[in-house]
């Protein structure tokens, strides 16, 4: 009856000695590829997709405007709003906002300011075109519609 001899017990432990190394590697990956949140975004942000993207090289020359329906409709209503830094602004405030952003830059770089519009895909062109007209008045004419990468068809 040697066939049915009880099997010798096998150790069933996963080696954990390299766990810190693995976790540190993950940690460094995230530290390098991500950046700190500077504002908490209070509008819906479902960014549309496109194929012909261009990249902005210098982050210091970029100013972000977030447009979409507020995520807390009980507090701010359902109409799409414009968020700049940490506050909601109206289209008429944009000229002042652009001048503030420009004053933070060095004098020779002020005309290179690029406004990145992060617009929710369900927003309407009406509001966005109001923003564009104000940006033209403020002479901030480099514009980027922020999108995600879509696969080429």
């Amino acid at each position: 009856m040697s066939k049915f001899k009880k099997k010798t017990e096998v150790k069933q432990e996963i080696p954990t000695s390299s766990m810190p190394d693995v976790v540190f590697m993950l940690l460094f990956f995230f530290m390098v590829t991500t950046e700190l949140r500077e504002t908490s975004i209070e509008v819906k942000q479902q960014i549309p997709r496109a194929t012909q993207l261009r990249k902005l090289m210098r982050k210091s020359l970029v100013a972000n405007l977030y447009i979409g329906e507020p995520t807390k409709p009980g507090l701010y209503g359902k109409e799409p709003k414009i968020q700049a830094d940490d506050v909601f602004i109206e289209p008429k405030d944009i000229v002042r906002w652009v001048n503030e952003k420009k004053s933070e830059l060095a004098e020779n770089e002020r005309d290179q300011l690029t406004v990145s519009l992060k617009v929710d895909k369900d927003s309407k062109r009406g509001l966005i075109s109001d923003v564009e007209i104000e940006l033209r008045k403020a002479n901030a004419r480099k514009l980027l519609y922020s999108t995600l990468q879509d696969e080429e068809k």
Partner: protein
Amino acid sequence: MARETPSIPNSSMADIAFLLLTFFLVTTTMPNNRGLSIALPPPPELKPPEDIKIQERNMFKIQINSSDALLIEGEPREDISSLKDDIKVFVLNNGRNPASSDSPEKAIVSFKTDRGTSHKRFIELLDIIQGAYYDIYAEQAGVTNAKFRDAASDLSIPENKAIYNKGRAGIPLNISIADPSKVGGN
């Protein structure tokens, strides 16, 4: 006498690393500095109100209404898969077809939306129009479309500037985005 080797307890190292990892996962975001880049026209009041006559044949008209339906050169269209090629043919016509553009310099793609048009549809069409131009530029510069866009993103490198200038030579990016009409929307 055997000397005892001093050692730091490292069994909790993984826990500490996980804690740090979780902290970074929560407080950071993936940066997104990519998108469709356009240049806005000068401020409305600075522009002299002159009537520029543009010949009908040099305009490629794309219109979208408030329910996101398309009108291309005056005709409704559902299928937009061939639109990119249509624009390329229009821009590079060079006077061959008398109904199409005279030269790439004179060709203008006119893009008009309504206040009620959704941003998603707007981006979809702008992507196609810009794609047509980038394809033309890339072909003229002898590089791929993606390479040309990379070069155009960073003009501080002389090599990129050369590709950019070669591609753009003689073909300006004439995309006119008109102020939206006020039929639908807010």
